């Protein structure tokens, strides 16, 4: 049996990133994710990596840009208001095609809101809170184990596509503890190996032509061309990187669609609800598992229920996937209210 250890979600993210080869962390405190910078401030200096507490989230994301520009594995984390402040930076990172990891441990909004868990930054994450056409690869773990796993995975994925990865989680998952297996099965690349292969990174032009990283493309047509290039890349990611989980019988009558902390709760509901209810859990929010949803919806005799901790955001992507072939209902609670198993059961009863 693999050795299990009790770990907090936030720490799992931090440990996962370190085990994934993190070179530099830059962040600014905000609840409910303070354990990440605090852990980093202790661990990174011990292994000769960089920890900087930035003066703001704006500075954090731009420091990430700097160390990503140099080809190093770079990361920041924050919670909703802080992530809003990073939107310009995220747009630049995507425009400049810089790999990095951003973690959003969501809290209740809008405004200062509160510090409970929430899922109200879904739109911001998957549609783009910043300006321009761009995409973040977005993971939504539903357990502390996945917090670790996806954090560890993110650098390789983000380097593969030269695109930022976001882990979109929330205060409940960030703060809760659970047994996980911290095991690095294959030897990880050290941070210097992938750096050598980054033929775009800036580290001084010794022995090669000078390099240039930019998103300003003023010559007529250049920016459009770059956008089409990005678009093809996003298509590739959509084809190859969709992750989801299906729980319950594929021929259930009602399919719940839920992610993250809500998906956990739905899983416990399904256990009780019997074989008539299934769950589709998007693991990547972008790229979204549209195909499988569309496939399941096709016969037309299914019903869908999207459950979220917000006023209805992912439900739009579910509807777009279902495209009218089946009814899609929504159950949600905003402002940090945690959806309960009873509420979901109640709603399901009305649908069965």
């Amino acid at each position, binding site marked *: 049996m693999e050795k299990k250890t*009790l770990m907090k979600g936030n720490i799992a993210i931090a440990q996962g990133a370190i085990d994934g080869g993190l070179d530099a962390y830059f962040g600014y405190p905000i609840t409910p994710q303070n354990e990440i910078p605090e852990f980093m401030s202790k661990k990174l200096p011990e292994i000769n990596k960089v920890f900087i507490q930035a003066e703001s989230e704006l500075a954090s994301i731009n420091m990430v840009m700097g160390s990503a520009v140099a080809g190093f594995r770079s990361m920041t984390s924050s919670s909703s208001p802080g992530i809003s402040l990073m939107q310009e930076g995220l747009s630049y990172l995507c425009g400049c095609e810089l790999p990095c990891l951003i973690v959003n441990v969501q809290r209740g909004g809008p405004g200062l809101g509160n*510090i409970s868990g929430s899922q109200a930054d879904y739109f911001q994450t998957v549609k783009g809170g910043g300006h321009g056409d761009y995409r973040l690869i977005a993971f939504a773990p539903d357990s502390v184990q996945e917090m670790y796993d996806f954090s560890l995975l993110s650098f390789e994925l983000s380097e593969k596509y030269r695109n930022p990865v976001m882990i979109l989680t929330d205060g409940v998952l960030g703060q809760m503890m659970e047994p996980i297996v911290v095991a690095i099965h294959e030897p990880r690349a050290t941070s210097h190996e992938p750096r050598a292969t980054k033929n775009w990174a800036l580290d001084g032009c010794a022995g090669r032509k000078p390099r240039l990283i930019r998103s300003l493309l003023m010559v007529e047509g250049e920016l459009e061309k770059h956008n089409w290039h990005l678009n093809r890349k996003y298509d590739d990611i959509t084809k190859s990187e969709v992750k989801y989980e299906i729980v319950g019988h594929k021929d259930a009558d009602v399919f719940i669609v839920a992610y993250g902390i809500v998906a956990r709760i739905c899983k416990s509901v399904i256990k009780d609800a019997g074989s008539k209810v299934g769950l589709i859990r998007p693991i990547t929010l972008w790229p979204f598992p549209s195909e499988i949803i569309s496939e399941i919806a096709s016969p037309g005799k299914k019903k869908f229920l999207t459950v979220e901790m917000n006023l209805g955001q992912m439900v739009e992507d579910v509807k777009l996937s279902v495209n009218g072939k089946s009814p899609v209902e929504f159950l949600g609670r905003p402002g940090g209210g945690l959806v309960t198993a009873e509420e979901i059961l109640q709603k399901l009863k009305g649908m069965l």
Partner: protein
Amino acid sequence: MEKKIIVCGSGGQGVLFSGVVLAWGAIEAGKHTTCFPSYGAEIRGGSSMSTVIISDEPIGSPVAESLDGLIALNELGYHRYIKKLLPGGIVVVNSSIAKVKADDRNFFEIPASELADRELGNILSANMVMIGYYIKKSGALSLDAVKSACEKLKYKKSAIELNKNALEVGYNYENKTSKGKRR
């Protein structure tokens, strides 16, 4: 089997640590578990709590709407969470600090602070005394599981021993109260 437990008290009483010990105990017992502490400005007022769920099956929400167990290290916490207790749920109260009136539930008092002070020479071990007593009364976990949990936590040897002893003190406490009786 699924047990939802809240440990509560004031800052400095070791509430969060107690939750962690319970959860580690669950791991030792081969169970599923989650532990969800209060955090941030919630604890500014000085209260602290932790929700621990121990189950044979994977756990959904780490937040408990209703409780199988309440471990109250102070009065405030007792009053805040007692309404969530399910019929048949078990309450364990630190009677050294909390003067609460029992109702008709499985209500158990233990002068944990005094015991910790007297038997262990460390009043801060009251939390472990409470845990020991709780597992005895609830059967949620075995004493062995929780004791070996203590060893998993990276602490000094002496601290580990202290905690294990405190668990035993609580576990072996011959309570003179019975169900619902006042002390």
